[in-house]
């Protein structure tokens, strides 16, 4: 009944940005570069979106929010180049480089927010409008769950996952990208630039994470502040591992977390759940993640060459 009507749309809203960020992580790791900077990258996207809305609302009018989302994606992509440069060209430890970005971005973006918003580290936004899908939302039961009070960006995101899956498994680019993550020497020996492929992989992860951050801002949090940085980037990493680096599985894993988090968040609304000690509800998403990891990810093996800087000299 109504419980589902509240849970499902909320869960979807939480899942979509989480999933886009995880998908971004997928592209990077499949190309062979571990990217734990997802938390920072989503932050850069959220900030870029907030910035555009704050500064240019007058210029773009009702389309501002969509322009800001494009800005979010671009900002994420550009920022990810820092990680790409360190990891690929400078052969830095990929975990360290990612950590540096995760420390830098929250501080830098709040710093910049303060300087444009008279010292306040908070930029509120109106966010995306709720939307009903024409025709489909009228379908009994399913319509009200999935197509009512939703965002147009949700469907764009589904399109993104479709395209990602197709490219990854049916296009030369996808084949070569995956090969870079398993055996870069094989790729090099047929004359394809491993460096170029990896830069692209990391760039895509930045674009998707930035977009995810923009969506996080405009659908869930509705203000740019420290509230953006609550660990969705790390949860995305968990979803990636849980989903064994395959696009549709990662979507499933993200949906799982989205559902768990939503149940935990709205529990106060339900008296029956409310009787449980609050600790069960607040820790529920994380405990269930651990359980899921133990059950499904034993010795989960990622792309074989991920994490190793590519050395031309090694034979």
């Amino acid at each position, binding site marked *: 009944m109504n419980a589902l009507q509240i849970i499902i749309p909320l869960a979807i809203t939480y899942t979509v940005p989480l999933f886009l960020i995880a998908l971004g992580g997928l592209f990077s790791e499949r190309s062979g570069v571990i990217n*734990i900077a997802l938390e920072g990258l989503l932050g850069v996207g959220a900030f870029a979106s907030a910035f555009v809305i704050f500064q240019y609302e007058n210029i773009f009018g009702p389309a501002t929010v969509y322009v800001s989302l494009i800005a979010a994606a671009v900002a994420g992509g550009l920022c990810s180049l*820092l990680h790409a*440069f*360190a990891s690929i060209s*400078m*052969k*830095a*430890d990929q*975990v*360290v*480089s990612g*950590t*540096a*970005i995760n*420390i*830098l971005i*929250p*501080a*830098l973006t*709040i*710093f*910049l927010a*303060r*300087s444009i918003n008279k*010292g306040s*580290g908070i930029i509120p936004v109106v966010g995306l409008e709720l939307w009903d899908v024409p025709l489909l939302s009228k379908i009994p039961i399913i319509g009200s769950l999935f197509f009512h009070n939703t965002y147009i960006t949700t469907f764009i995101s589904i399109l993104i996952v479709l395209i990602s899956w197709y490219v990854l498994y049916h296009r030369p680019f996808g084949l070569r990208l995956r090969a870079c993550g398993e055996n870069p020497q094989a790729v090099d020996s047929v004359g394809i630039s491993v460096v170029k492929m990896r830069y692209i992989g990391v760039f895509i992860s930045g674009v998707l994470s930035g977009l995810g951050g923009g969506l996080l801002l405009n659908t869930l949090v509705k203000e740019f502040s420290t509230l953006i940085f609550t*660990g969705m980037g*790390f*949860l995305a*990493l*968990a979803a990636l*591992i849980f989903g064994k680096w395959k696009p549709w599985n990662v979507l499933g894993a993200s949906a799982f977390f989205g559902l768990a988090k939503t149940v935990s968040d709205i529990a106060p609304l339900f008296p029956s759940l409310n009787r449980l*000690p*609050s*600790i069960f509800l*607040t*820790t529920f*998403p*994380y*405990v269930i*993640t*651990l359980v899921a*990891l*133990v059950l499904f*990810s*034993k*010795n*989960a093996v990622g792309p074989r060459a991920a994490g190793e800087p590519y050395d031309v000299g090694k034979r």
Partner: protein
Amino acid sequence: MGKNKFLVSLLAVILGIITGALVMLLTGYDPIKAYEGLLKGAGFILQVPKNATLGDIIFNKRLGDTLLNTTTLILTGLAIAFAFKTGLFNIGVPGQMLMGGFFGVFVGVKLSLHFYIHTPLAVMAAILGGALWALLPGILKAKYGINEVVTAIMMNYISLWSVYYFVQNFLKGNFETESAIINPSASLRVEALTKLFHGSNINLGLFLAIAVAILVWWILDKTTFGYELKAVGYNIHASKYAGIKVNRNMILSMMISGAIAGLAGAVYYLGYTNNIKIGSLPQAGYDGIAVSLLGLNNPFGVLLSALFFGLMNAGGLYMNAATKVPNELVPIIVAIIIYFAATSLMFETWLHRIGSIFRKKEGGSK
């Protein structure tokens, strides 16, 4: 080679400071005033009153605060460094520190004993709390090969919300967001030190931290246990071949790292705040990563690095008050330093190659 590494770290710090200055210039702040404020806030630049003694100058309150910050960072840095040296990335230090702190504060609030018993007991409880919290990620990694980064992150959040619940229900204090205050017999604060540093919150934790640094160095360098841990961290297969029990060592390694993090909790919550504040994970836990990386994951490097970061943290608040520069600047500079330190591997390799060309001319190996 060690010299090269040190030079490279130093270069990273310099580049970080310069880049921070650039960021400030671009956003309309005065970098010189800001850095001056930083040093003042850290106790390295003073306005000296007329009757000041040498003791007054050296052991000033702000320096005490710098050392206070340093104390916690030494321990979180060591926790991370120890794990790194043995092949693990323990990003769970914040959660372990909080849980350890909770255990310690619990003992400090609920019991009433003589100082000589109470304090050590509370500290040991904290160490135990941290070690226990690191156990699960360790076991999952050793037995099932599950990535310790993901499990530790989950444990961080579980720690956050568990402590939240336990404090509100068992350790209630005067404010919603704080626990009760510990009995003074459990506090690491000592009158002599507090007077020496003119009222700063510096406490016995500093000596504990330095002692742990020496202990960590000794274990890793001089014992068979350290030999085994390092071997497992570098090469699991060769370790198995050598008859080393790999799983046991991985788990022990995580536990020791967690124990040090727990001690960091003791030092922070029993020495500084005297209670637990709920709702957030201690930032010092994450800063430990930066401290360790800059200190090249070496115990003595961590000591120096923690001093640097302690300076930054202590000075940041003053800088903000005096020059209005937001103290987010501090983590910005820290992150830039780490980034340069990470990319410097190439510089180090180049330096080494240039060096080896000169060495080869004198007749090399092979």
